[in-house]
């Protein structure tokens, strides 16, 4: 057991932290959000320059060769600054799919493009009627000549609107909810037959509904084995949970700081409201919740590469529940302790609040994972 960071990791954390403190102020972020794609191309290039976009990829592809803990450290900083850019979608989600299932040719062609910042990707898996069931895929792909034709629709695809390439799941065999028979495809964002309707999520990040109408792709578009994608999808989601959990921990950290500062400075009835013991104890509860959440985020990062699948799934599920509950508790109380100002769009707390809410509804919510864990009790 070892909680130490390597010197490289300390350097990574510090440099990301410094970059964001300088360039990613709450005011600057408002500007980024107004960009056409909902984030800053300039910041994206900065991330590329710092090597963040190559963090989890092998050095052979221009990457940094880092692991889930490195991603955790970056995401925690991103969480503090409420970073809008498609890091999760491109590097973590699509990146994990490529890492785990990509052919040498695919990885050589795509990963360096990601690392360099030229290529944005998205993971187009969820569907409107699937809720959180990863095997509930109704989009289809049928063989056509050497290639495939895709039909269907994908829902709430994070950064699906601005992605250059999509990783799309489709059913090549089996029935709805079968784990077997799902295949991943690489599809250009502007391929013929791909429709994308982009919108904001409640936390200000972007997503899209993606429709697939007779989308033709070649045989080389298949990512991994035909019909074998379920375990890959599952691990992509686990990597996503781990990364997002770290982001929420960063957010909670910031929420507690902002709230403490508010409690110290806001005067009412002639004294700082932080002198109220009830608010002190509530803040102590927030601290405890944050630290428990932080522990669970570390657990998730550690488990992303655990080879024992049952152990990995179980621990990631526990982490999702733990961070989800902590995020909810800390964010709800951060708003409450602020009073009216916490309810406003122009103040920072509400943004963290919604980001934590978003986390709880990404990749399966607290109830979903608690139900999964409950079903395993025997």
């Amino acid at each position, binding site marked *: 057991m070892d909680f130490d960071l390597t010197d490289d990791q300390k350097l990574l954390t510090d440099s990301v932290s410094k970059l964001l403190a300088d360039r990613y102020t709450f005011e600057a972020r408002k500007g980024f959000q107004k960009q056409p794609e909902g984030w800053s191309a300039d910041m994206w290039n900065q991330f590329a320059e710092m090597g963040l976009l190559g963090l989890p990829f092998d050095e052979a592809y221009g990457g940094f060769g880092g692991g889930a803990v490195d991603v955790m450290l970056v995401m925690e900083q991103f969480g503090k600054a409420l970073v809008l850019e498609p890091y999760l979608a491109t590097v973590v989600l699509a990146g994990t799919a490529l890492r785990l299932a990509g052919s040498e040719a695919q990885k050589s062609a795509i990963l360096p493009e990601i690392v360099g910042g030229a290529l944005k990707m998205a993971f187009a898996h969820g569907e409107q009627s699937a809720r959180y069931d990863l095997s509930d895929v109704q989009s289809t792909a049928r063989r056509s000549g050497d290639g495939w034709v895709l039909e269907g629709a994908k829902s709430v695809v994070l950064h699906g609107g601005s992605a250059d390439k999509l990783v799309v799941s489709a059913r090549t065999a089996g029935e709805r909810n079968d784990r077997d028979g799902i295949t991943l495809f690489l599809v250009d964002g502007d391929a013929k037959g791909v429709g994308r309707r982009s*919108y904001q999520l409640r936390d200000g990040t972007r997503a899209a509904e993606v429709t697939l109408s007779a989308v033709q792709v070649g045989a080389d578009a298949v990512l991994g084995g035909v019909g074998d994608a379920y375990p890959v999808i599952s691990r992509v989601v686990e990597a996503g949970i781990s990364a997002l959990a770290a982001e929420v921990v960063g957010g909670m950290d910031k929420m507690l700081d902002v709230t403490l500062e508010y409690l110290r400075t806001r005067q009412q009835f002639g004294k700082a409201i932080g002198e109220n013991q009830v608010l002190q104890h509530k803040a102590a509860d927030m601290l405890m919740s944050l630290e428990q959440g932080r522990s669970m985020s570390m657990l998730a990062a550690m488990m992303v590469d655990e080879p024992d699948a049952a152990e990995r799934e179980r621990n990631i599920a526990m982490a999702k529940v733990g961070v989800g509950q902590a995020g909810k508790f800390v964010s709800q109380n951060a*708003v409450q302790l602020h009073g009216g100002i916490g309810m*406003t769009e122009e103040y920072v707390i509400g943004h963290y609040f919604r980001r934590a809410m978003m986390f709880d509804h990404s990749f399966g*919510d607290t109830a*979903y994972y608690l*139900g999964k864990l409950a079903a395993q009790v025997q």
Partner: protein
Amino acid sequence: MDLRFTPEEIAWRDEVRTFINENLPPEIRERMRLGYAPTKQETITWQRILNKKGWACPGWPAEFGGAAWTPIQRMIFTEENQAAPAPELNGFNITMLGPVLAHFGTPEQKAYFLPRAANLDDWWCQGFSEPGAGSDLASLKTAAKREGDFYIVNGQKIWTSTAHHADWIFALVRTDPNARKKQEGISFLLIDMKTPGITVRPIISIDGSHHLNEVFFDDVKVPVHQRIYEENRGWDVAKYLLGNERTGIARLGKSRANLNFAMDVARNVRAGGAPLIEDPGFRQRVAQLQVDIKALELTQMRVIAAASKKSDGKPDPFSSILKVKGTELLQATSELVMDTGGPMAMPIWASELNALGNEPIAPEWAGYMAAPYLMLRAASIYGGTNEIQRNILNKAVLRL
């Protein structure tokens, strides 16, 4: 003791329900069922329908349109209206200003303002909170200086709900900055929102809605005859008003409507290959909420029954229980709605899609599932935070 509704009460509930069913425009009802807040025009439309029926201002004296309902009748009406769901009566007009005018107003003030308030000819808003004050309401600073037949008002109000809709504002202002106690230098003014010098600046809430505002007063001239009650006695008026504000705060009808909506959706979405409503965790959560709603329903009846026995006009401290538990239920039920929607609850579906035409992008139920949850985080803040309610309970009941 019999906690069941009497046959008369059941008949009344049926009468209300039938009237709402027959007269509430279906498009209003459906939008609200899906979680959307009513528009200004929807609220006006419905209140005028109720006013025509004589149901818009039941708590007022009969001469101004009051309906002489028993407290239980009022509760039944309020909850049926919330559960329909239908737009609620404009509370500023009906539960706040109306009783204040009827109690403290001059004959002229009553004759002019009350009928217009009942019919929503004037949309009122409330100018109490200020940036520096928060829960410490009486520390307000907006100044009203007497000059002849006018007050010259300067200052700022905040958290002013629907000020951007409002024709009039009733405001607390400081008329005596040198009063011994801060409560003693305050007056209660009615101010026409069209008066020069008033600026309304929107505050966007975290659900993206425009509901709140800042209101700035810059040398605003207000005729002295628009003052309610005596100069520097505005705090008495405010206390009377705040006491009335606390009736109906449990908003159980709304919580019931939330729960029903969540269950409706849960019957139609799948989780693990079966309807979500069959999921054990979902069912446990619904069952617990049903228990909590039932308990508060009964507690509310007890508070109402007690209120109908007493006549000292003071607010029952037990209404703080209704506030705390009622807002907890509003928050828990709206959270259930959001969670029921799952990932589909997260998009702001409307944004940037209008340009793409009318092709539906998501199922109708998914349109507005997170916004009420976001908005209702304020429920434990406004009207005296839930922490303040506990202070009230301590002071009035526990006496620690």
